[in-house]
């Protein structure tokens, strides 16, 4: 078994071998691997006795269950109205320039993927940046770069 298969097997042991376990299992895979590879979705389908298409169809419904390869850190800049009003464009531009990627892309060293997100629930403290599960409210371009640099150092 590959590492992914072991992980999925453990997740299924924990959450049960029913369809109701699908979300927690997929979430568990994404928590470790940042996205759902073909291999991972097949392994989940096998463990839960579902069709691979069904797993893919379900996963692709959810923004955070990425089925495209992603970097080790996922940056999501909230793009919804109040963050828009508070300057999310400048944040995105600064990150794009700094990491030399466009929204939707992953850096060459695979350390970062830059994405946007719909309302993250920090409208009073925008613009907000979500890095993996960590929230960074009241961003300025400078602060955002600083934080990303910290993450860069922490990531091999």
């Amino acid at each position, binding site marked *: 078994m590959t590492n992914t298969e072991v992980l999925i097997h453990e997740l299924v042991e924990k959450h049960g071998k*029913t*369809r*109701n*376990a*699908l*979300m*927690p299992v*997929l*979430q568990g895979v*994404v928590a470790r691997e940042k996205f759902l590879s073909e291999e991972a979705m097949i392994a989940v389908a096998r463990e*839960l006795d579902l069709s691979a298409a069904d797993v893919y*169809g*379900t996963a692709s*419904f*959810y*923004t*955070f*269950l990425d089925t495209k390869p992603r970097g080790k850190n996922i940056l999501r800049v909230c793009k*919804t*109205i*109040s963050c*828009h*009003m508070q300057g999310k464009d400048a944040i995105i531009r600064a990150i794009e320039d700094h990491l030399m990627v466009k929204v939707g892309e992953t850096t060459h060293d695979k350390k970062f993927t830059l994405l946007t*997100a*719909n*309302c*993250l*629930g*920090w*409208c*009073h*403290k*925008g613009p907000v940046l*979500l890095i993996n*599960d*960590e*929230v960074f409210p009241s961003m300025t371009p400078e602060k955002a770069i600083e934080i990303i640099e910290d993450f860069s150092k922490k990531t091999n």
Partner: protein
Amino acid sequence: MEQKQLKKIDIIFGWDDKCTPIQVVEKTIKKTPENIILDMIDSGLKGRGGAGFPTGLKWKFCRNEDSDTKYVICNADEGEPGTFKDREILDRVPEKIFAGMTICGFVIGAREGYMYVRGEYNFMLKALDKKIELFNKQLRDLKVDFQIYLRSGSGAYVCGEESALFESMEGKRGEPRNKPPYPTVAGYNNKPTVINNVETLVYTSEICRMGPEQFKALGTKDSRGSKVFSVSGDTPIAGIYELELGMPLKDFVEEFGDGDTKAIQVGGASGHCVPRKKFNDTIIGFEGIPTGGSMMIFNSSRSMYNVLHDYLEFFTEESCGQCTPCRIGCQQLLKGIEAVKKGERPPTYLDDLKRLTSTMKIAAKCGLGQSVANPFTSIVDNFREEIIY
């Protein structure tokens, strides 16, 4: 700042050391479920998620269903743009939510409660999990046959729609179901289910703590009690405020606006945009404009075209995609205002689009598609020239 006129309430976040949430449970379950339902109905509490269904009735319907298995679900899939109150509640007083869930479970005859927290709030799961564990233990110690489990979403606004949330919990795409049947008859796992918003559940436990009278004394005849508001946009004091329902919008603007308020979006992206000229005669409450709590303030520097464009982009992406009026309707509205702006379609095309929203409002499968008409018509009607030019 000007002198505050609105009365600040401290029910949701207040803490009574002499009657903690678990003690509220202990005290409440000495009553009969029927009496608790009566208290709820008497309090006039209506759902705080936006739809405003009377909570007591919901519990009563579910209690009346005959089933071995029933569920209580806390809808913590707060995703309405401009709303962030549930996060604060989850962070600061989750025990009150647990207590509300437990009391509801006692009333309807459920042994399991689930809390479905949006994926955007993953950062708080660990802490929540610990608190749930402790609360569950306290419940076992009290010999209360009810346990709470944590589930999380993964970034899909529509899962805040109750039947979509059940689908998601069942490991499926979060596509809203046909209604009827309603959740109280067939909800999660097709079992009778009460699904309440975070804030609603806190109020239920608070009503049990202090009695319906104190709650009822707040607000107006149609809008009893208080409500937590998420205030954002062009305001110097963005944040969370618990206020009495039934307040005139004018008072709200005076207190929260920056002196240059042009419009307020009440109820988030799916709510209504109220222009300055209507501040005086708009009431925030079920008799006026109901809201899930989002109050977003725009001053005169803002382009209402951009605001509407943002909303439509949001709905286009967050529609589950299954039903025609919503999936394609949202795209047409978005592309439509772009075309008008660029001059590719005449200004009168906005009227075609408004007629389309009337169809979406009555023909879409769920509240998401039905409510897109709210921001569209209220912004187009009040700021037509900003959309065109």
